[in-house]
C-alpha cells in the first residue's frame, strides 16, 4: 500500500478489492463447510463480523501496550474470548442454527482472516480506521459466504432460507427430481468455490485490461 487510505476506502477495500475469501483466499474452512444454505452463511457472517470488529477494537486500543513477541498470543486470547461470547449467544437465541454450524463457531478463533486483520491493520492504526477495516472485512466475508450459500442452496435443495427459517424463494416442485444433491455435500463446496474464484479472477483480469 503506497498511500494512506481513508477510513472509507479501507472499508470499501475489504468488501471488493481485498475480499478476504474470494481475493485473499483466507478463511477457507468455514467458507466451504457452512455454505450449504443461505441461513447458515448469514449467521456465520454475522458472528464473524462481530468477532472481527471487537477484536480489532480491543487490539487497536491496546496497540501501544502489546509487546511484539507476545502479540499473536494476545490476539488469539482476545478472539477466543469474543468467540465464546458469540457462541453462548447463538446457543441461547438460535439453538437450531448453532447446532448446524457445530464446531465452526468455535473455529472462528482460528480463522486466519481475523488474526490477519489484527496483525495487518489494528496493531498499527487508530480506532476509527481499525473499525472501518473490520466492518469492511466482515461484510466482505458475509458477502462471499452468501454468494456461495445462494448458489449451493438453490442448486442443491431448490430453495433459499433466511435466518429464522422463512423461505425467501422456493423453486417449483418440478425442479425437485433434478436437484443437484452433490451441491450440498462436501464435494459441491470445493467445486463451487473453485468456479467462483475462477470467475472473480477472470473479472479482475478483465477490469485491469480495460483500465
Amino acid at each position, binding site marked *: 500500500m503506497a498511500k494512506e487510505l481513508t477510513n472509507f476506502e479501507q472499508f470499501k477495500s475489504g468488501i471488493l478489492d481485498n475480499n478476504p475469501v474470494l481475493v485473499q483466499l483466507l478463511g477457507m*474452512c468455514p467458507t466451504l463447510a457452512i455454505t450449504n444454505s443461505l441461513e447458515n452463511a448469514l449467521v456465520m457472517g454475522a458472528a464473524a463480523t462481530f468477532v472481527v470488529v471487537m477484536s480489532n477494537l480491543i487490539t487497536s486500543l491496546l496497540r501501544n501496550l502489546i509487546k511484539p513477541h507476545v502479540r499473536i498470543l494476545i490476539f488469539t*486470547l482476545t478472539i477466543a474470548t469474543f468467540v465464546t461470547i458469540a*457462541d453462548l449467544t447463538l446457543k441461547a437465541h438460535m439453538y437450531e442454527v448453532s447446532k448446524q454450524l457445530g464446531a465452526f463457531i468455535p473455529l472462528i478463533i*482460528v480463522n486466519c482472516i481475523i488474526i490477519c486483520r489484527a496483525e495487518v491493520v489494528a496493531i498499527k492504526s487508530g480506532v476509527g480506521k481499525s473499525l472501518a477495516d473490520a466492518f469492511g472485512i466482515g461484510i466482505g466475508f458475509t458477502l462471499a459466504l452468501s454468494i456461495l450459500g445462494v448458489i449451493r442452496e438453490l442448486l442443491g435443495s431448490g430453495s433459499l432460507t433466511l435466518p429464522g427459517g422463512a423461505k425467501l424463494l422456493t423453486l417449483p416442485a418440478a425442479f425437485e427430481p433434478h436437484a443437484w444433491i*452433490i451441491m450440498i455435500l462436501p464435494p*459441491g463446496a*470445493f467445486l463451487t468455490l473453485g468456479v467462483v*474464484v475462477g470467475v472473480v479472477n477472470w473479472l479482475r*483480469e478483465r477490469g485491469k485490461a480495460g483500465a
Partner: protein
Amino acid sequence: MDGVTLGGITGILLGVVLVNNLVFQGFLGICPFLGVSRKVDTAFGMGCAVTFVITMAGAITWAIMHLILHPLGESLFGDKLALNFLQYVAFIMVIASMVQLVEMYLKRFFPPLYSSLGVFLPLITTNCAILGACLYIYMKPETQPFINALVYAFGGGVGFMLAIVIMAGIREHLRFSNVPKPLQGAGITLLVAGILALAFTGFTGIGK
C-alpha cells in the same frame, strides 16, 4: 471403562482417516492444504508436524477437560460443566504452546524442513484441523475414553497427511498441464480437491 474394544478403536481410526476425513468431509485445515501442497516432500513434512501436534494436543486437551475443568467445576460450583466456557481459551493456549515446541525442535534438528515450511509452521496454531479435532473429541460420545480420544486425534493427523500428500502428488503433475489462466493456482486446486472429495464420498457407509 466401556467402549474400549479393539473393534471400536479400529472403527474410530478408519472412520477418521477415510470416511470422515478431516479435510475432505470436515473442511478442516484447508489453508495449509492449499498452501503447502506444491511438493510431495514438503507436504509430507507438514503432514508429520500436524500429526504430531494434533496427537499431543488431543491428549492434553482431553486431560484438561476431564482432569481439570470438570473436577474443578464440580468442587467449586457443584456442576461438572460450570467451567466449560473456559474450554476454547484453554484449548487454544495448549495448541499455541505445542506449535512453539515443534517449531523450536525442527529449527534445531531439521533446518531444511524448517525453512521450506516457512510461515506455515507458526500457522499450524491457526490450523483449524487441530482445534477442530480437539473439539470433536469432546463432542463425540465414542471418544470419551482416553485411548479412543488418542486414536481419534492420531487418525485425524494421518487423514490430513493422506489428503495433503495426494494433493501434492497431483499438483506436481498439474504443473505441466495447460490450465485456463483465471483458474491457475487456487481455482484449479479447489476443483481437483472437489473431485478428490467426491472420491472420498465413496467411503461413506463403511463402519458407522
